[in-house]
């Protein structure tokens, strides 16, 4: 994929994440911060489908943005064909693992498997 397209994805995921993370934080502020972290409240969040979908979107957007950012930093430090390939594939793999692990939590908690 062309770097210009990757940068557009990078900026797009950033803007999307800013909006959704703001909603995520505001949800914590609807009640006392400590109270909002109580087990029942958090489980209720996962059971509410629109909120669970929003968490999944945040997870994907931030994983893509975060690991692409790390890829850019690593490519700024050093260049070379095999190194670049390793960094590119390493970032994609890390991104996929993080999304899979986070999605597992959202799915299991949302479906009452906890």
């Amino acid at each position: 994929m062309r770097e210009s397209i990757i940068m557009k994805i990078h900026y797009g995921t950033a803007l999307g994440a800013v909006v959704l993370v703001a909603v995520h934080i505001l949800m914590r502020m609807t009640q006392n911060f400590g109270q909002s972290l109580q087990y029942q409240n958090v489980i209720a969040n996962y059971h509410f489908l629109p909120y669970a979908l929003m968490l999944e979107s945040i997870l994907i957007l931030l994983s893509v943005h975060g690991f692409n950012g790390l890829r850019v930093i690593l490519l700024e430090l050093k260049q070379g064909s095999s190194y670049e390939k390793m960094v590119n594939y390493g970032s994609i793999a890390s991104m996929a693992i993080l999304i899979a692990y986070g999605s597992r939590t959202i799915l299991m908690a949302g479906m009452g498997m906890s």
Partner: protein
Amino acid sequence: MAERLSNREGIKGMANPTRYGIERVAYWLQRLTGLGLLAYLIGHIFETSTIVHGKVAWDKMLEFTQTPQGHIILTLVIGMCVFHTANGIRVMLGHGGIGVGKPGQPEYPYKAASLNYKQRLCIWVSIGLAALAMMYGASVLFGD
């Protein structure tokens, strides 16, 4: 050859925040806050995954994170998040050609049009917003 090699500073050159003024500091802060936020994201996904192990595991995790040290870390994360967002929007607009001035003939003392007062002001505003958000975050976290 020796002169050419002396110009190759590698990571040390990239890491040197003393040259190029506040723009280089912003470049560094953007990368450092990005790495910090990525580390927090991984930690946050790991900590929230304890909910699938039931109430006891969740409460144990809260006991570990809802401490003054945990609140200090969260306050730093708030600051990193706000700076990274505000400075990131500046960088994004700059890449789109907004706020970087018009290209012109290079004239002594060869000041880059892109490093103008608007850009510098935006960097300071980003730092200021991060500081304010940290103060508000700390008041919420420690006010509980």
